[in-house]
């Protein structure tokens, strides 16, 4: 492996992106420790980070074009895993059958990994397109590529993961020349349909009581029963607000997570833990790091000469930005509670491995920007 790394590869390797991603992940390990100092999630996360870095370097030094060629194979394999989740091999946690337990490998979440093959598959398909606006046929095929994993995920059901797939397709459409009037139309339609669907859903009872409460908790967290479904939202807001300017500086003895007021502190609500421990200063620094990482990725997309590569990077950047927004918005109490991990921060091998694989592709594409 090392032997085939040429000198040119090292010269063109995107060290800044790599260092940023690893720094955020290390910061994440510290916060996981703050969240539950008496449990070993943080040490597991270090192991996860090691595995993720290995995968990252393998992908970064591989030729992404070859991998994109094999995309259908990965895609098919991913669908198989998603289907296996629904069999007795799947593990049910909190009413969601989202995990797969295999001998030797252990327990992992295929819906997390499946994002990468989906990105590659879409890039492969739309990368061939050279000119002109997005046609209906192309839109349908693109939609179809995403519909297969999405359908399987909805059967688990894991709404949080499913939602994170949409920005991937949106980015692919947007960069494949979808007409601006359709974009504007879609936004207008959403602006009308979302409230309409809400009203209809509440009246017909299609939106369940607990789902309504979760959403009402966002609109007015003080009004909902703090012991009911608004509990997560109000506790997260308390945790964030408590952090103040500079946080509790690691004095976790009376922290919201240690006293178990904050649920899922090491995964879904890791940002609230960060806010409590490091305050406004720490949170703004983290958001700036994310902004820097995203702009670094997007800059890479703009430099690349190869269309499929550009699509891979932009899909990944969009998905990351979206996931950050959904997760932090939830922690800050203005988006409803859905289980979306915070990229690079939340504890969980599947998530960190997927994110580093994705960034590995970005680095690989960037490294080959001068090829040809």
């Amino acid at each position: 492996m090392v032997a085939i790394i040429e000198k040119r590869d090292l010269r063109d390797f995107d060290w800044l992106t790599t260092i940023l991603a690893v720094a955020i992940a290390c910061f994440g390990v510290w916060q996981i420790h703050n969240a539950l100092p008496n449990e070993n999630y943080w040490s597991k996360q270090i192991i996860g980070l090691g595995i993720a870095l290995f995968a990252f370097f393998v992908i970064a030094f591989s030729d992404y074009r070859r991998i994109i060629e094999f995309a259908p194979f990965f895609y098919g394999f991913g669908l198989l895993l998603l289907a296996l989740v629904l069999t007795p091999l799947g593990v049910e946690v909190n009413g969601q059958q989202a995990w797969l337990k295999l001998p030797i490998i252990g327990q992992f979440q295929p819906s997390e990994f499946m994002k990468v093959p989906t990105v590659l598959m879409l890039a492969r398909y739309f990368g061939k397109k050279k000119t002109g606006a997005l046609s209906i046929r192309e839109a349908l095929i693109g939609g179809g590529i995403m519909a297969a994993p999405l359908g399987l995920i909805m059967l688990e059901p894991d709404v949080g993961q499913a939602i994170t797939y949409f920005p991937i397709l949106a980015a692919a459409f947007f960069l494949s020349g979808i007409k601006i009037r359709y974009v504007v139309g879609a936004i207008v339609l959403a602006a009308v349909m979302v409230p309409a669907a809400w009203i209809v859903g509440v009246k017909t009872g299609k939106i369940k009581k607990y789902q309504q409460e979760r959403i009402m908790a966002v609109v007015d967290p003080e009004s909902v029963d703090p012991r009911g479904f608004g509990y997560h939202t109000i506790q997260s807001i308390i945790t964030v607000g408590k952090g103040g300017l500079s946080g509790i500086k690691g004095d976790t003895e009376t922290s919201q997570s240690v006293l178990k007021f904050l649920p899922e502190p090491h995964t879904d609500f890791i940002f609230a833990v960060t806010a409590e421990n490091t305050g406004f200063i720490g949170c703004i620094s983290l958001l700036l790091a994310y902004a820097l990482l995203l702009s670094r990725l997007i800059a890479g997309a703009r430099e690349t000469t190869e269309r499929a590569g550009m699509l891979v990077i932009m899909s990944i950047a969009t998905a990351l930005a979206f996931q950050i927004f959904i997760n932090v918005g939830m922690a800050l109490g203005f988006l409803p509670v859905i289980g979306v991990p915070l990229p690079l921060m939340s504890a969980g091998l599947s998530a960190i491995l997927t994110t580093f694989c994705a960034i590995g592709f970005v680095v690989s594409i960037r490294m080959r920007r001068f090829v040809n």
Partner: protein
Amino acid sequence: MKLNEYTQNVGMRTIVIQVVAFALLALLGVRLYYLQIVQGDYWSGRAENQRIRLIPIPAPRGAIFDRNGKILVDSRPTYNVVLSNEPLKTIDVSTRVPEYSRGLNLESDFVVERLNLIKKQNEFEALVLKESATMQDIAWVESHSLEFPELRIELQPQRFYPHGTMLAHVLGYVGEISPKQLEQEEYSSRGLRPGDIIGKGGLEQSYDQYLRGRPGYRKVIVDSRGRVQNEIEVVQPQAGQDLVSTIDLDIQTAAEQHLAASATGRGAVVAMDPNNGEILALASAPSFDPNVFTQGSKTPEGRRQIAAYWQDEKRPLYNRAIQGQYPPGSTWKIPESMGALQQGVITVKNSNLACGGGIQVGSKFTRCMGSHGSPPLSYAITKSCDGYYYRLALKMKIEGLIQMIETFDFDKRTGIDIPNEKISQTPKSWKPIVEKREGRWSDIRTVYASIGQDTVVVTPISMLRAVASIGVKGKMYVPHLMKEFKPIGAMGEEGSQSYFAERPGVTFDRPDPKLVPMTPEQEEVMVKGMWGVVQGGGTAGSIRIPDFDIAGKTGTAQVAQLGKDVGAKKDHAWFVSFAPAFKPEIAVIALIENVGFGGSHAAPVAKGIYETFIATRYGGVPPADAAIDPKLVAKR
């Protein structure tokens, strides 16, 4: 930008994505600023509120002693199983019912009731599930702490009444404050909270504020399920003040024993120091055991016992000495005679009135029990001549009787320092009603009222207070049971929040006695008559104690028909007295319900008390000046 050649404006579109992404991140930054910088203190306070709990440490209640330092009430440590609210909020409590009732040996109805109470009343932080937990109960709770985090063991000093039914009406009992009481200004202004233990009845109620300690607390950090993680601060409670009462346990014991030994075992006995109003003994029978109320109110069998007390037709919970209203019979003649002397209807020199064996009023002849000729006042008292009093009252007229009633405070409470005292009912209160109903107040009613019947019912305590004043130059003291409260030291550091200031000792703040105007001659003639009742061949001659003169008056109050055995409605027997007759140190009243003659049933009870008084105060030998040569009395 090389991809621009694709005519899809890709460069511009990547910029759009970047701008949108940054805008969203900026939005998060703004929200963060709002929550952490603008509202940071508020949320910080919310976080603190939900993790900090104050767990009260109950303060030991002051003990109660008799005047010689003998213990009457104290508190002993017991363990309670306590149910806390927090962990129950999120679970289905019905699953707990069989577990608790099996584990703690409780009836499931009771468990359901307690669970409902704590679920409904949100302000209850915790509620006692089982009092006086046994070692098995404690072991069961400890070993199930993970399954049932809502249960905990708490040390609670429990009130204990070592003498059981004795003095129950004086002491009262303690219990959890009721929801109804919490709404009352009297209690809410004192900062009492649900679950607080307060005095109910007797001294426990009257002096609750002194007896009650100031609870301390443990400030702890709890997790989201209410489990204690850490202790931040402990503030020790300050005990309540010890009460020394005026009761003399020896005399009280005698009173209770003699009362219990009486024919019906129902009645009241009060012994008082006429020189200051201190109550030496106050017994009402039948009685109840206050321990049943303090220990039993949370067990089904204890509740049955309490219900039985309430339903018992002998009314054990009712304090006959201050709440019972009885026709006074001939004891009424003492204040009546004094009133007549004051009003000048008769004088010390000229007090003779005809007995006549009775009196004819209209068509009705009301007879006297004997034929006494035309006796002077003292002889009329000694022999309890009804005929004399019929005529005396007619001379006084009803207005004169009412004036006497006012003089001796029969229209008021005596002001004894235990709650729920009743007011005597007399012609003063009846006259307007009778006049309205019958058009006028007829003479026959005055005749009946003259011997303490018909429109006269009095409480034993009010009669004792009135008669006792005759022996002490007309000083009517307010009877009282509180002698003093012992001081208690300060707790904690001065100036700190946990500081409890010292509580100084308090002695009874005795109001000035009401003065009944009487000349020494008037007093002497009255005492002479009362002396004769016991020492001069009067109606209570049988209780005479050698070398110890008693001045008294018997009373036999008609309930259905005077002097006849009418079963359950036999006459009430009275005896009211003080001794030594010419220098009183103790006044005693005895009332026995439905037994017959006062001289043969009530007077012996009083005698028993005097004997105990002589035995305990004077070693069984009455002081030299306790008796006077009968010849000298006759000359007075």
